[in-house]
């Protein structure tokens, strides 16, 4: 008996020891159950780097957040949720109650974002979403959620607009996406938009998550003789998609893949086979958003320039790598929060949420504006194409850093080293 009593007391101590941290009045804390390991580790790493970079900018370039007539420093508190839902809620609970954070940034993916939402909601805590794109999140009546990433249905709209404009002869489109809630939503958006533009959807299939061979699906796709192909889902299947299109000599005018195609690893893995392949992106290094452009469009500008963000990101991660859109949208979310808190002159979640509802601004990430449900509507996506080993932004025209190469070279030409260079 004595022993079990001792164990009990020990337990009490373990738990008690945790709840000491008190809230200091002179700082604003961002809490984040980051996905540093598990299936979303790659995106999670980027997000943490982006947030650190922008927090650094706010503190060291902006002098802090201006509240109550004084500049308050930002602090970033994050834990690793292992990309698992059990950990998401327990860590958000800890962030809100033990660490007394002022805002919670959601973990990556729509599922995990949804898992955390009720907990944030029950504490009336502002909950900012930079990694959950499913439109349905915003049809659930959550009051304290605000999105920075764009909704899933918009991913392939730009690509369709572009092809509609530059190639009046292109009629037949094939859609082949991963069978997941996110990719299915992208597919739905693409299908509706394609039909609205008068394209003919000749192929429409999905493939399961974790697939290791797409040959049967792609053989059927080949037989439908599309003019261009839209598809994808996540990282690994995107590489597989491109590779096996090459293996089967399926030549189309354009190939656009979500998620995978815009990452540097994509080209590194596929080298010349990726030439001319496109992908939609929320942000890419090279976009031309700047203070001047913000002025021209009448939006307030905040945050680092693109080059500054790049430097801060490298400093934050300690690695010489380019930030991708996961980093940029997470970073932009820091800036949105800063503007929200300054506008409300408070860190009260409800007040900041109200200000964010009205807020419009521009940063290195581009425009930012949410509708009444908190869904992002002010950010436009860009389309990126691999041209001679570099990512060129080819759409929309006002953001482009180069012309599009259309049609892209055939895979037989690419084997011989052909590069996708616009005529």
């Amino acid at each position, binding site marked *: *008996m004595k*022993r*079990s009593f001792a164990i*009990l007391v020990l*337990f*009490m101590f*373990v*738990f*008690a020891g*945790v*709840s000491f941290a008190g809230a200091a009045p002179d700082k604003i804390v961002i809490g984040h159950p*980051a996905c*540093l*390991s598990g299936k979303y*580790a790659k995106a999670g790493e980027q997000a943490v780097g982006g947030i650190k970079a922008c927090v650094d900018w706010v503190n060291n370039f902006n002098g802090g957040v201006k509240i109550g007539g004084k500049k308050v420093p930002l602090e970033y508190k*994050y*834990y*690793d*949720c*292992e990309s*698992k*839902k*059990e*950990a998401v*809620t*327990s*860590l*958000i*609970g*800890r962030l*809100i*109650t*033990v660490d007394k954070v002022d805002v919670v940034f959601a973990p990556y993916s729509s*599922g995990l974002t*949804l*898992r955390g*939402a*009720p*907990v944030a*909601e*029950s504490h009336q805590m502002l909950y900012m979403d930079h990694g959950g794109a*499913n439109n*349905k*999140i915003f*049809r*659930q*009546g*959550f009051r304290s959620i605000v999105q920075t990433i764009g909704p899933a249905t918009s991913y392939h709209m730009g690509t369709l607009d572009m092809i509609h404009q530059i190639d009046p002869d292109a009629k037949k489109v094939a859609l082949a996406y991963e*069978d*997941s*809630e996110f990719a*299915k*939503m992208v597919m739905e958006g693409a299908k509706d938009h394609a039909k609205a533009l008068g394209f003919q959807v000749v192929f429409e299939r*999905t493939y*399961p*998550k974790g697939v290791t061979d797409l040959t049967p699906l792609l053989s059927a796709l080949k037989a439908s003789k599309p003019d261009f192909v839209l598809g994808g889902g996540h990282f690994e299947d995107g590489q597989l998609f491109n590779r096996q299109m090459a293996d089967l000599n399926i030549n189309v005018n354009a190939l656009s893949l979500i998620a995978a195609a815009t990452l540097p690893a994509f080209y590194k893995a596929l080298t010349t086979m990726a030439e001319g392949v496109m992908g939609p992106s929320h942000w890419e290094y090279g976009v031309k958003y700047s203070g001047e452009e913000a002025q021209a469009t009448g939006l307030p500008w905040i945050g680092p320039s693109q080059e500054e963000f790049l430097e801060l990101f490298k400093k934050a991660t300690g690695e010489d790598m380019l930030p991708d859109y996961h980093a940029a949208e997470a970073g932009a979310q820091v800036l949105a929060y800063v503007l929200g808190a300054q506008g409300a002159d408070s860190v009260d979640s409800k007040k900041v949420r109200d200000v964010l509802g009205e807020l419009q601004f521009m940063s290195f990430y581009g425009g930012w504006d949410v509708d009444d449900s908190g869904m992002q509507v002010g950010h436009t996506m860009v389309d990126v194409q691999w041209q001679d080993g570099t990512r060129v932004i080819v759409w929309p025209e006002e953001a482009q850093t180069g012309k599009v190469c259309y049609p892209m070279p055939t895979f037989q030409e690419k084997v011989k080293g052909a590069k996708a260079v616009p005529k």
Partner: protein
Amino acid sequence: MKQLPKYLPLAPVFAAYVVMFLIAENMEGMWQLMSMLLFYCALGQAFNVFMGMTGYVDFGYVAFLGMGTYGMALSITRLVQYEFLGVWIIVIGFALAMVMSTLLSMAVGAVALRLRGAYFAIATIGVNEGFRFLIEGARIWNGSEGMIFTADLNTILGREAAAALCTYWADIMVLVIAALAASVTLFYMRTKVGYALTALREDEDAAKVMGINVTKFKIIAFITSASLAGLLGATAWALKTPYVFPPEVFEIHYTIEAIIIAMLGGAGTLLGPVVGGLVYGLSKYYLSIFLPGFQLLIFAPVILVIIVLFPEGIVGMLKARTKGTGVERFIV
């Protein structure tokens, strides 16, 4: 009253749960941590009902949680239009969760329980994966898009009540399920079911020869374990996480976690899953806080060491140590 001493071993289990509840209730910031720990304890306890007693490793166990999640989700999303049902929709959800997980377990039981050892383990993985692909492929229950139903819950219960359900009552229900699973475990241990299954675990063929209806008792334990999992899915997943996506509710890692918890605490013991769940949950939680990103790297070798050096688990060891002392009666 004569029955009471028989059920004395429940005391430390319930005491642990009560202490956890009190800590969560009274200490700032402990609630969500406790809810995670309770989930792991309940998972281990429910898994243990079948695996611990029979030695059969059901690798597809998570499918029963998945069924429970679907049961609740279907009830909420399909019945939300019948306003007069009100909170009964949740009750129906529980019933549906039980029924669906029981039905699946009967189907699996009929097929897989004829197999033994590794063949059984592989067959149950097959059921889990096959079922997931059937849902996605044949587009059953919205296929891969799944269901998101916070809005529906708000409609049914009102915003405040729905929020309280998600963040408070769901956790209480997990606690109840954990306690229920512990009670059932001990009840089985103390009745014919337990004696038969112990004989089976030691030597299935000998048990058969002795005239024990092995199949019957196996199926009883299997269905019990599965329906507890169904309830757990309906609360810890459907109510606490108001969405269901097939790849997440059939995620094989949850089965592995159940195995780890049972193994850590001591398979086939009553107290084991509680101890295992606490040790597993707490160490993961603090590793993720102090060494974010390295939990698994540390965990994997630790588990290997435990399997090799302490195959009986923590409670198994305690049991051996306390033999002959007064504590013996409490550790089962």
